[in-house]
């Protein structure tokens, strides 16, 4: 039975369980819902949860486990001799799977009867041909062991699926019955249901942790490998970043400091653009603008967040860079040598980040109760005084969140840096110099042509890890600050 149908059946059982649970709850209270501990629908939902959750859990585990079990048992059918020298058992198994799929397709398309498929003692050419006719992709002649294995594979899978269907449906019915049995007036159905929801919420929150673990794990091995090849002290305290193309044995200097400095500098410039503009936009939109203006301007600004960063990169390179150059360049103030610089990238990145600050802050500012503003106006404060001294402090946690999000985005941005900031890794104070960031280098080292086992390529993982740890530190600090200055209204 296809999984889709199985899901539908379980859902149907659950739906029936809901109705039964609900009505049983009502009848146990002689039709008077008030005598129940919880709303009747909670009793229904309790049954639904019991009918669905264990059944689906079993189904998922089964679906994950069955291929493994089947594969290991089928794989035993393939003698060592049937595995070509350069191949592996795994690849032959892929062939088996493909042949089994082909048999399925052939049966479905009528090119083969089920009997024939199961007991194809016929010669393999015929089978191969029939499979090909049925549109199955058969790469070469189906061999004896492969065909046997494929047949066994089909049989096992079919049995497995039948067993699974039986188990899942039985479990679902049992679950529903259990839920129905529990249904009595004094049963705390709401609490049970809410506990389940709470579990779900906790599970959702732990995804963040899992992601972090995943990231650390996917970075850490290569990072360790990198430090085996390249001294950590040179990496952390080196002031030069000049990887050489590893083809020549390499005399790379991979000091992270210039990259960190570039990251920091460009992000600061970007935030200096985005935070004031974003914050003032948010203030204007939520406090001054008419609702018409607001309803148009806010989504428009949000479009800025959705323009692909490559467009910003090109915008930096082709428009902003030359513009800055004409003012600060050799023909102007003489501070700038080329169009690509920290300033160029920072400015453009700032533009991209405006909606991160403006839209979120606007929502938060809007959520500050009107009575706070009234209190201030009533004392003769101007609107700006009210905003600065009453509304903004009240909205501070949210605004800090928005700014953190924007800074995170600034740290993680690549395209704009690559195109706008130049690729030079430099430790320099002049914002009109070209610099580059950790992220840009992660991408470029990872997507480069270097030997993947060389420090020049592995450094990408070390860079990722370093950035991860540093931002972690910054976030701890930010959390501390927010806790310290938080003001709670009411």
């Amino acid at each position, binding site marked *: 039975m296809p999984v889709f149908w199985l899901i539908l059946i379980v859902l149907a059982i659950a739906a029936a369980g809901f109705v039964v649970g609900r009505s049983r709850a009502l009848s146990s209270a002689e039709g008077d819902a008030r005598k129940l501990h919880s709303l009747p629908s909670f009793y229904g939902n309790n049954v639904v949860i019991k009918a669905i959750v264990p059944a689906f859990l079993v189904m998922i585990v089964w679906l994950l486990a069955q291929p493994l079990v089947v594969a290991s048992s089928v794989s035993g059918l393939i003698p060592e001799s049937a595995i070509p020298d350069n191949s592996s058992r795994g690849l032959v198994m892929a062939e088996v799977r493909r042949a089994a799929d082909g048999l399925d397709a052939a049966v479905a398309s009528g090119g083969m009867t089920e009997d024939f498929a199961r007991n194809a003692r016929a010669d393999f050419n015929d089978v191969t041909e029939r499979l090909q006719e049925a549109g199955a992709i058969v790469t070469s002649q189906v061999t004896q062991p492969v065909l046997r294995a494929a047949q066994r594979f089909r049989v096992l899978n079919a049995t497995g699926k039948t067993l699974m269907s039986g188990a899942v449906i039985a479990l679902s019915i049992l679950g529903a019955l259990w839920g129905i049995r529990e249904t009595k007036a004094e049963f705390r159905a709401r609490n049970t249901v809410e506990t389940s929801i709470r579990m779900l919420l906790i599970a959702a929150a732990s995804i963040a942790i899992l992601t972090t673990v995943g*990231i650390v794990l996917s970075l850490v091995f290569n990072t360790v490998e990198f430090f085996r090849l390249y001294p950590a002290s040179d990496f952390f305290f080196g002031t030069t970043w000049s990887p050489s193309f590893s083809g020549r044995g390499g005399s790379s200097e991979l000091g992270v400091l210039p990259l960190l400095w570039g990251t920091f500098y460009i992000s600061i410039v970007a935030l200096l653009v985005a935070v004031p503009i974003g914050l003032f936009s948010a203030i204007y939109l939520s406090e001054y603008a008419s609702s018409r203006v607001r309803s148009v301007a806010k989504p428009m600004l949000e479009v800025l967040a959705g*323009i692909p960063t490559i467009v910003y990169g090109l915008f930096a390179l082709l428009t902003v860079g030359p513009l800055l150059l004409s003012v600060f360049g050799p023909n102007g103030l003489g501070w700038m040598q080329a169009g690509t610089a920290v300033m160029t990238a920072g400015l453009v990145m700032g533009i991209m980040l405006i909606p991160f600050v403006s839209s979120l802050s606007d929502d938060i500012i809007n959520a500050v109760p009107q009575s706070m503003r009234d209190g201030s106006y009533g004392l003769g404060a101007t609107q700006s005084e009210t905003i600065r001294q009453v509304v903004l402090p009240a909205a501070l946690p949210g605004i800090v969140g928005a700014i953190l999000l924007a800074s995170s985005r600034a740290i993680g941005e690549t395209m704009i840096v690559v195109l706008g900031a130049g690729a030079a890794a430099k430790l320099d104070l002049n914002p009109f110099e070209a610099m580059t960031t950790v992220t840009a280098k992660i991408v470029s080292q990872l997507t480069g042509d270097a030997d993947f086992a060389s420090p020049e390529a592995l450094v990408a993982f070390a860079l990722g890890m370093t950035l991860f740890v540093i931002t972690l530190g910054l976030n701890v600090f930010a959390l501390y600050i927010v806790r310290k200055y938080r003001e709670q209204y009411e």
Partner: protein
Amino acid sequence: MTDATVQGGAPAPRGSIHSIDARTAKRNRAEKRFRTYGKIAIGIGLFFLVVLFASIIRSGAPAFTRTVVDVPFTLTQTQYEEAEGTLFKTKAYSDFFIAALDNQLREQGVEAEFDADTIERLLGKVGSTIREYYRANENQLGEEVSFSLATSSRVDGYLTGRVTRESMTDSRFLMAADLDLVDRLVEGEIITSEFNWPFITGADSGVDNPGGAGIGASVVGSFFMMLVVLFLSLPIGVAASIYLEEFAVQNRFTDLIEVNISNLAAVPSIVFGILGLAVFIQFMHLPQSAPLVGGLVLTLMTLPTIIISTRASLKAVPPSIREAALGIGASKMQTVFHHVLPLAMPGILTGTIIGLAQALGETAPLLLIGMVGFVARGYPDGFLQGFVEPNSAMPAQIYTWAARADVAFYDKAWGGIIILLIFLMIMNIVAVVLRRRFERRW
């Protein structure tokens, strides 16, 4: 009385409310300045938006027209069999067509110097269109069929002004002299311009075939990815935020989760690609280049944005609302879902809009899970296949086009950006309308 006066002090005479006193004037100026800053800020934002839009639209417009050669053509059964017998079949079809066109033009006595090579240079990749047609309509063999076949990108460029005789002096793809023939054919209405439907509906093409490039397939890819992102990141993000903000007790562990989430926001997107490759493809054996995997990776990337904004808006709901609900015997769950969440909805939707917009425009993580490059697989066979069949995504498509040598792809890239922005706006409209319905002050 006097005592009170001494204590309270007579109010400093404040004068008429019609004439503004010095201090108020000063404060009003500050107010005005503040307000002006706001206007300037919005102005700057919108100004850049307009500038960006203008340049996108200007650069992208040419992608929406194409030039075609309209000619009747007959392919015989023998020619068909001959072509099918070769390895590079489409080339054979193309050659037949060129020969036929050459003949036809000579018969018509077109006044220009040309030979088969000239015609080859003028045409785009016509072979596959012709082959596809006859493979599907074998009964048309020997009949005259009228084809609209794409010209080469240089002819396209010539008609839109990108290419001139001067600019082609050193090119071996189109000789300046070839343009005489183009002029004649345009006069004879054999070459015409039309709206570039294949661009909107088609899939990617090889680097030597800009005329065949379309964004359609990757729009579908992005669509499926966004479905995954929306249906995973929104519920998970909101659920996580609710747990952290409303249920979790403040302790080291929740602090850890909190810091973790903000930290995830700062993880470069390509690192999510590394994670996705390791977890979804290598560990979970999900198919490569599939929107499902892309969607999962982008979900992980979008989650922090949604969580941070949702938490901020949950925090902003005044406690009195919660007390009111709890006070009449609502459970915490009911309080949150019935009262707090609706009030936090605008912020949640904002987070969703921004998060999804970001996900929609992101290329880097897709680089590692195989959605960037050449994924010209056309449309998926069905809804569920849409998630697992190899496909590209709009930003990835744009990114690859922008890197190609032929400038015609550059137009396509900008055209693709226009489509992406249209997609983005359609996606946003729903959220923006919803958000407005939830907005209220209390």
